[in-house]
């Protein structure tokens, strides 16, 4: 005889998340920090729920906007440091041990 709690567990493992669960896990999902099982359930919810889909889009836009704020690194500084590192790697830079 099938144990009721087992079937409950299986169904909750596969069913789409609720809006409340998406609220809890959405940022983990967008950061790629959610396990596969939860990711599938969350993605399944986003396909059907307009409200949560819009919320996910907003967070994606926030992340995109923030990523676009990365300042450029001065090329001359980077070149000097790479040369300095290369001298250490070649043994040309005296380093006190």
């Amino acid at each position, binding site marked *: 005889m099938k144990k009721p709690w087992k079937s409950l567990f299986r169904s909750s493992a596969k069913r789409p998340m609720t809006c409340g669960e998406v609220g809890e896990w959405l940022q983990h999902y967008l950061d790629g920090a959610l396990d596969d099982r939860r990711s599938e359930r969350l993605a399944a919810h986003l396909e059907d729920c307009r409200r949560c889909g819009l919320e996910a889009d907003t967070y994606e836009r*926030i992340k995109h906007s923030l990523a676009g704020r990365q300042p450029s690194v001065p090329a001359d500084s980077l070149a000097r440091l790479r040369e300095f590192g290369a001298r250490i790697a070649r043994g040309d830079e005296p380093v006190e041990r």
Partner: protein
Amino acid sequence: MRRHTQRVPSRVSSPEASQALFERHVLPEIEVLLRVARSLTRNNADAEDLVQDTLLRAYRAIERFDGRHPRAWLLTILRNTHINRNRRQRPELLRDPDGTSRQLNELAAVDVTDAGVDAGFDAEIERALAELDEPFRSAVQLVDVEGLTYAEAAEVLGVPAGTVMSRLHRARGRIRDRLDRAGLAPRSH
């Protein structure tokens, strides 16, 4: 056990071996080190000096490095070097020994390099960032702007990765609330 086979013996004796390890693990990370150093120092010359010191310390310590997560290892050295330099050069910072959060905050207030398609959206994010408390803004700066992982940002800030994650999520939530209030991304309920 792949990890173990990749581990570097704890005592590497020859300079040639150290140089090879340095080339493999350290040289590819110089740009990331410079980015984070600029975030910490807010000054190009200081950032360059900080990375130079970090490279020297990394070379001296490379024999003890286990070969895993070189970026996180280097960011720890960078942070400690930064704290030591601050203590030497700016003793008034002893009460706030690394000053990391404050300096990251200053950086967050400037340097918008991407005008973006939606200037209003970006400008509102700029204002939201300015309103964030220091620890939250630092998490955003390191992870969402500089592209570090939770674990790497944790090394820079000297807090657990879970703390970085929770600060980051709360910070984004506040930014999201501000966009809602500004009518730029209203919630549909």
